[in-house]
Every structure is written in C-alpha cells, then in structure tokens.
C-alpha cells in the first residue's frame, strides 16, 4: 500500500518531457517533488503563473506571489505571469497538457466528483470544472476508499459532478488504473504488497483485469 508521497512519486512517472502541467491541491502538489532531472516540465498555477518553483525560503516570502492553493511560492527562470482570464484561456485552448487533481468519486466512464457534498460541505469548484472540461489528459490522485471504507471507484458517481467522461487514469494507494473510453477501470499496476483480490474488494465499478498485473516500479 502506498502513502501519499509514494502516490505522488508514481504519478510523477506519468509526466512527459516538455509538458505543461497543472497540479491540484493535496497529493497532486507533492508530484512536483519527484520529477526526474532529465524531464523538462513547466507547472501552471491557475491564479496566473507558468513556471512555478518550490516554496520560498523564509526571507523570500512574498504575499503577492502565491499558488492556487494560496501557498507562498517562487518563480523559476523563464516564468510568466498573467491574469485569470488568460490563465483559463490557455486551459480551454488546451495548451496545458496534463491536469493532476484529487477526487471524492470517479465513475467507470470517467466522470469525476470533487467539489461538493450536499448539505455538508460547501467549498466550491474553483478551477476544477474548467480544468476537467478541457485538459488533454487528466490523472486523478486519491485514496481508493473513503473514510467509511466505501469504494470511490464507482459505476456512477453519487455526488454532484465536476465533469463528465474526462478522467484518463487513476493512481491510488492500491493501484494504477486506466479509465477505458468504452467504460471500465482497467487495472494496470498493483501497489507493493497489494493483491488483485484486495483491489477487487475496494472497487465497486467495473474492474477489468487482463493477464498478470505487475507491481508498481519506482526507479
């Protein structure tokens, strides 16, 4: 079973050379720490920055320079600043290659729910509905089951949707799964020490298992 850092580390392997990537709040933010040195990547923060760097040293903290999670950050050489309209313009014009975000539920046809629990939690969708509507590739980082032990990989989402038929891949503490265009979660990899049976038990939606399922590699 993977911890959050290991989920981030596994997702980092999905990042292509020379790509523009938007990282959501939570586990996705950690992905930036595991990019291989030979991979050129530019992180977008949808509040108006391309070329986001690591958190600042204490002396370099600037209240005017934050990421979309409202954390203080830095800019890398080659960074560019812009306003919110241009930021979502480049998202909808599909200039951003990959979006990595968290989810409360994903359905077997790639629908995602991650912004609202009716009557309980009202936080809002922020930029998530824009990102999932237009990103070329969407990877979800999340726990396989919720706090009550219920599967988050479902036939249909039960919570209000953020977007439809958009998630391409899911990385959880148990597995890496592809969401097939025709529907279904195709099991690609198992986490170390996790059996196919464990994954079956934790997956409520249609799970597709073909042949031997390899264990994740992290080199």
């Amino acid at each position, binding site marked *: 079973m993977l911890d959050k850092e290991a989920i981030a580390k596994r997702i980092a392997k999905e990042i292509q050379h020379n790509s523009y990537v938007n990282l959501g709040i939570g586990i996705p933010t950690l992905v930036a720490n595991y990019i291989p040195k030979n991979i050129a990547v530019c992180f977008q923060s949808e509040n108006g920055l391309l070329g986001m760097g690591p958190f600042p040293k204490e002396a370099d903290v600037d209240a*005017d320079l934050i990421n979309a999670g409202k954390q203080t950050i830095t800019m890398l050489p080659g960074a560019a600043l812009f306003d*919110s309209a241009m930021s979502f313009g480049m998202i909808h014009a599909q200039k951003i290659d990959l979006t990595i975000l968290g989810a409360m539920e994903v359905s077997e046809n790639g629908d995602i729910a991650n912004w609202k629990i009716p009557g309980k939690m009202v936080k809002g969708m922020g930029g998530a509905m824009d990102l999932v*509507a237009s990103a070329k590739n969407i990877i979800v980082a999340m726990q396989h089951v919720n706090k009550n032990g219920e599967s988050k990989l479902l036939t249909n989402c039960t919570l209000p949707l953020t977007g439809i*038929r958009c998630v391409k891949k899911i990385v959880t503490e148990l597995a890496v799964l592809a969401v097939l265009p025709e529907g279904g979660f195709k099991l690609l990899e198992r986490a170390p020490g996790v059996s196919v049976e464990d994954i079956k038990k934790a997956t409520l939606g249609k799970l597709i298992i073909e042949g031997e399922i390899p264990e994740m590699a992290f080199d």
Partner: protein
Amino acid sequence: MMINKQVKNAEAAIDDLNDGQTIMLGGFGLCGIPENCIAALVKKGVNNLTCISNNAGVDDFGIGLMLHQKQVKKMIASYVGENAEFERQLLSGELDVELIPQGTLAFRCMAAGYGMPAIYTPAGIGTEVAIGKEVRNFNGKDYLLETAFNADFAIVKAWKGDTAGNLIFKATSRNFNTVMAMAGKITIAEVEELVEPGQLDPNQIHVPGVYIHRIFQGSHYEKRIEQKTVSK
C-alpha cells in the same frame, strides 16, 4: 492635459456606492484584494450587496469582514472553503450563494470588459452548473452559454498606478483584478503607489486608464498570507 481620475481616499471613492448594488472585488484568496475599500465599505455599513469575487475572504479579513457585518445578500464566487462564517450563513439560508467555475467567473468579467454579451465555455457541461443554461455544440463538443456580468462597481487593487488610471500589477496579485477593472460600470482602483502621468512606462501597463474611473493611493496594506509555506 491628461484626464485625472484621482480621488482622496477609499471613503471618497465609494461615497455613492449604495445598498442593494452589485460590486466586483478583485483578488485571489487574500492576494491582491482591495483592503482599503473593503475597510471603507465595512465602515460605511452599506447593505444587501451582491458581491462578485473569486473567494469570500477568511473569517476576519477580506470579504469576511463584510460577511461578519451581514452586508452581503448574495455572493457569486468559485471557491469559498476558507471561511466558517460564510459556510454558516450559507447553510442557514441567510446568504444566497452562486458558485460558478473559476474560468467562467473570469470570462464573464472579460466579456463585460470587451463589450461582449456572452461567452461559450465547456466548464460545467454535464453538471448542476449547466441547469437551465443554453448548450450549443461546436465541432463536436458541448459548450454552455454564460452571460457577461453587469456590475455597478468594480473595486480592484494594483501595485502601481498613475492619476490617469493606468495600472500595473505585481506577481500573482494580477489574478481577477485586470478583468474586473475592465468590467465595472464604475471602476475604483486602489494602488500601493500612485504617480503622475509619464512616470509609468506605457509598455508595462496592464490595464489602460480608460477603464478606471477613480484611483487613490491606499495605505497600511496588511497583505495577509493565507498559507505561508517555506522550504528549508
């Protein structure tokens, strides 16, 4: 002689802002919010406002100060997760809230500033955001029709400005400030440093003064940080 937009201070700038009006407030989280004008709105006690802003501040800062005084009737925002008083007023029904995608928020401001009545966006297709809205298919993909905002006032905060109303922003405090500045029937800009025409490089202007009706140099900026995060 260059047109002069300067007013004395925040109180003068919002003098004719009245109960029941719709106002836009720039900023992302607490970054780039018009602190001086928010303080003046709280002091003036203007009520029943419809506020358009990406966020709703935190409990004791930003728009949170106005929520605390129950000055806001309706909030239009994309993310309100940092404010317990907001959540309480929403769940109790005291506050009317319209949550909209962040890009839609930006584009509806942009549309107003560009004289466009509406825009099409794929954000929200297939979700509750799409309920009751016109859907149109272009090149095989569905889009929602979203109309331009119509705000009585837009209140923004810039880094530098001149008395002609030209604005320059710093780092990520630009966020919604530029598009909101372009979208108000009356736009108020508060700036950290106000200079005479000619002192800003025209090549560096982010919002030209034509969009700005009133400008003043603010004071005592707190610039509170929501999530101070440092590396060792």
